[in-house]
């Protein structure tokens, strides 16, 4: 497991070692959706907002 911080609230996040770029995670503290934009080291950004044509 790897530790990093939420880009919104700064809380510590524990992330699985098999996390990969493009993966979406939720911050357990503030609820923000985060996107993994780098894996070595782990880098997060706020995930893109829902768009009208997203889905199945």
């Amino acid at each position, binding site marked *: 497991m790897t530790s990093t911080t939420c880009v919104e609230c700064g809380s510590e996040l524990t992330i699985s070692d098999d996390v990969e770029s493009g993966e979406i995670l939720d911050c357990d503290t503030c609820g923000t959706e985060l996107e993994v934009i780098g894996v070595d080291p782990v880098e997060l950004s706020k995930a893109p907002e829902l768009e009208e044509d997203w*889905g199945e």
Partner: protein
Amino acid sequence: MNVGFLYSQIRADEKLLLTELRSRGHDILKIDVRKHQFSIQGPPSEFKDLDIVIDRCIAQSQSKFASLFFASYGIPVINDPMVVERCSDKVKTSLLLANAGIPTPETTIAFSPESALETIETMGYPCVIKPIVGSWGRLMAKIDTRAAAEAIIEHKATLGHYEHKIFYIQKFINKPNRDIRVVAVDGNAIAAMTRTSTHWLTNAAKGATVDAYDIPKEVASLVQKASEVVGGGLLGVDLMELDDGGFTVHEINPGTEFKALNECANVDVPSHIINWIESVANKKGETR
């Protein structure tokens, strides 16, 4: 095989597919659709050795256009752009189902607020108005009264972009608090689940509870036929149960999610999907 994995987000569903591909030793090129450019002159060199592309873009517009490019590059893509086009647009899907004689809810399209209101009044209440492109139960309205019809039509005509001025109006189906999602590959059902909610919208995204569903022959047959009319592929076919014991197909999803299905059904869904993708890649490889 060399697999191109086209994505914009790696959700649990994508993670399941990637894990399965890696466990089988396939070479994977992850293609973030947001970071690549697609030229009409031809593919970038990194795409040239791909045997197949699995399109898991979260946006239907990304899938619609990116799949066109892979097809034009001669690279097999799941799903084929024709399938994406037919399933992403509810008007096209409804026309294909109806013309093939596959039971689907009565649906009428109108192009003006006045015509939309007249349609609704003729169809009767309650009825449903849907965006022609959309998912996860968003922007759908169950219309119970003329007052509600007038308000919703005005909102769509005023606030939405031009596609919201195509009024897709459908008869409300009095289903038993649930609908059925079948995930199929080229019409062959892998597994199915019911999505149950006291709300009329029974999308899992809207909080419906899911349970495994044993697929009766009639449903399997409808899924086969529905898949055939849109061109096959990896699809999430949605059905509702009717009062007379029959079924109606109300939606076909070309970018089907399956995480919830994988958890509730006693079936390894990603394994079945990759089995099928391997067979598609092998067949296409023989003819390329």
